[in-house]
């Protein structure tokens, strides 16, 4: 993985001291609340319901065991012994004291980490495919480009105060696991007809209040122009994006208002001036960064092992875990393991200090000391030998990290919601709990199969509800929590935004309502169809009728009375 050199280290060290001084000036009354807010946000520090919340960047989700141990240490020393993995592959601490944040940043800097631009109206942490580097369907490893973008965007002077936040995702695979199409800028590594690898560039996607699917602005961009083209897009946005209304300030609104053709013209015009400037990316730098993502030294004989098959045949629980939580790897004899942070009794995405320490030991032993956070709030151990799967599984079971539910109903994406977030309209964690309590029969979950439930506690959509097969959005109706359901969303290649099912559901009935939706699916599915496939075939009506039967009856009565 990427190792800081003296320049990278210096910038995070200097940032720690800069923020220490900003915090001091704030506490001394030299900076007003309004003046300090953007500064602390640009360092991932929110003021939340109970305490500040600190969001730490995990660039493209990748962590070493040393970094993971530090994250555990921070949670113990400054917080309540746990952290929360966010949908942007970052980690959040819910209880640090403001005065201690500079010390936390210093601890992070000691392991080449930071919280720079993890919030604020600037370019945020760049996310990617959690299987980057090990996926079989990869054109090229996207992480070197994420790292180059990370460096380019860090303290970019022109784009420090954009109209609104700005999110990048980069994928190098044919299967989009990084929700590229719902980002402000999405990049796919693709091969053109000449056989060269470059980028397909999308712009203006995003969730939030107005969900929009990104549009292709350029089919093929040469790698050497990556930075200049990004700079052209950002400059057009910085100049012309709306600043009068924060709900209309994202780039998607600008792209929709101008139209993608016109917007593309503006970008190309801007780009024509800067494409051969100092922004031209040196191949030497690409090579330098790529070399740091070279694959580890895999064991050539890994596939020769037979113990794995023996365990599979003799241990059902192990086999069930392998079936759901173990994924293919481009190297024969290796697998990528998903560590489930979705055990029934914990808030989705939470991980304790003890678990983090143990995971750090396990990746030292089994995964070349690397682990990856995922946007669906789990971890991946990217390089596990098949012979090691069984002992690894046993260790994960001990830590309650082996729930065999990846991709199933209880592998819920869930934002912090009302329990922690000051913007929330409704709780998300209690709903996740309710769902886990109702659907606690593993056989039933396996029968239902692949389904993505995504939940946000307000319109900001941190839980990506629009792109859940079932989306759940918390709303507040006169002080009471209600939940609006959407069906049929997807963030993958077949991207779509969910359709609204109908009026909000009472809090107590959310899990029961999901049960009704699943009943419809089970009754109507054909052969191996997934929930999403059935939904796309039969449409929303059968689901509506099941959930709101009385109202439909009344509507029919009213309708017939009109005749």
């Amino acid at each position, binding site marked *: 993985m990427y190792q800081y050199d003296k320049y990278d280290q210096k910038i995070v060290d200097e940032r720690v001291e800069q923020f220490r001084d900003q915090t001091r000036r704030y506490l001394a009354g030299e900076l007003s609340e309004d003046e300090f807010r953007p500064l602390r946000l640009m360092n991932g520090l929110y003021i939340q319901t109970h305490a500040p919340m600190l969001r730490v960047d995990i660039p493209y989700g990748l962590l070493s065991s040393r970094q993971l141990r530090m994250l555990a240490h921070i949670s113990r020393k400054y917080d309540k012994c746990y952290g929360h993995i966010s949908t942007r592959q970052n980690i959040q601490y819910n209880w640090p004291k403001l005065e201690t944040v500079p010390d936390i940043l210093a601890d992070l800097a000691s392991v080449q980490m930071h919280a720079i631009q993890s919030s604020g109206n600037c370019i945020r942490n760049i996310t990617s495919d959690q299987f980057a580097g090990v996926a079989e369907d990869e054109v090229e490893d996207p992480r070197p480009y994420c790292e180059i973008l990370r460096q380019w965007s860090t303290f970019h002077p*022109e784009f420090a105060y954009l109209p609104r936040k700005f999110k990048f995702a980069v994928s190098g695979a044919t299967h989009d696991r990084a929700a590229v199409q719902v980002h402000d800028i999405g990049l796919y590594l693709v091969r053109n007809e000449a056989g060269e690898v470059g980028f397909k560039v999308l712009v203006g996607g995003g969730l939030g209040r107005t969900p929009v699917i990104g549009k292709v602005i350029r089919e093929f961009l040469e790698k050497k122009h990556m930075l200049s083209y990004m700079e052209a897009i950002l400059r057009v946005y910085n100049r012309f994006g709306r600043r009068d209304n924060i709900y209309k300030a994202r780039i998607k609104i600008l792209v929709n208002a101008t139209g993608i053709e016109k917007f593309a013209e503006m970008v190309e015009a801007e780009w024509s001036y800067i494409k051969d*400037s100092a922004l031209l990316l040196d191949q030497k730098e690409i090579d330098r960064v790529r070399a740091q993502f070279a694959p580890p030294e895999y064991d050539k004989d890994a596939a020769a092992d037979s113990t794995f098959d023996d365990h599979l045949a003799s241990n059902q629980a192990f086999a069930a875990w392998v079936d759901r939580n173990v994924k293919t790897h481009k190297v024969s004899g290796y697998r990528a393991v998903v560590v489930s942070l979705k055990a029934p009794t914990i808030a989705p995405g939470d991980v304790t200090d003890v678990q983090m320490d143990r995971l750090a030991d396990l990746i030292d032993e089994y995964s070349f000391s690397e682990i990856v956070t995922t946007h669906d709030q789990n971890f991946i151990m990217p390089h596990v030998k098949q012979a090691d799967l069984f002992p690894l599984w046993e260790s994960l079971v001990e830590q309650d990290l082996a729930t065999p539910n990846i991709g199933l109903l209880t592998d819920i994406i869930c934002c912090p919601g009302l329990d922690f977030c000051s913007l929330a309209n409704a709780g998300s964690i209690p709903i996740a709990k309710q769902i886990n309590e109702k659907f606690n029969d593993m056989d039933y979950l396996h029968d239902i199969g692949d389904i993505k439930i995504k939940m946000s506690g307000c319109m900001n959509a941190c839980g990506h509800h629009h792109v859940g097969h079932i989306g759940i959005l918390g709303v507040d109706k006169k002080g009471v929590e209600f939940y609006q359901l959407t069906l049929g969303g997807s963030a993958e290649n077949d991207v779509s935004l969910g359709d609204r099912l109908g009026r909000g559901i009472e809090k107590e009935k959310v899990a029961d309502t999901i049960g009704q939706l699943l009943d419809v699916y089970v009754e109507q599915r054909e052969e191996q169809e997934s929930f999403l496939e059935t939904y796309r075939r039969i449409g929303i009506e059968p689901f509506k009728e099941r959930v709101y039967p009385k109202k439909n009856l009344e509507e029919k009565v009213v309708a017939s009375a009109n005749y």
Partner: protein
Amino acid sequence: MQIIKDKKIVDDNWQRFVEITADEILPTGDIIVPFAYWLDNKKVLLQRDSRLGVCIDGDDETEEVAKDIEHFDLIALDFPAFTDGRAYSHACLLRERYHFQGELRAVGDVLRDQLFYMQRCGIDSFQLREDKDMEDALNAFTEISVKYQSAADGAEPVYKYR
């Protein structure tokens, strides 16, 4: 009045007019007028024998300003709020695309913690908001010494030194 220029606190004699009424008589000496006023009063302004500056805000098109750029000794960029980042792009464009050699001055809601960014975008003088301490603000220029990306300050991306 004192301002920060080239990273030092200096005395300054430019007089800036935010609004100018039709019958107002402008004093002698170096003046900064709104860009819109320049557009309407070019002739008169060109006859003065003092230095001339214009002030632009986020809504002004840099392309328009660039057409008359040879007449300006100073261009002031107004930050109506320190969180309004449009002037950063204006500054970059004026320096890099239109090769403006005169003084680029930040005015308005200009605070210490943005000076680093402003300076990197080619702004070389700063009229700090009145209630702020200028001595203290000078620290802003030395806090971060590594520049990952090229910008209008002429810095090369740090990777060139690697």
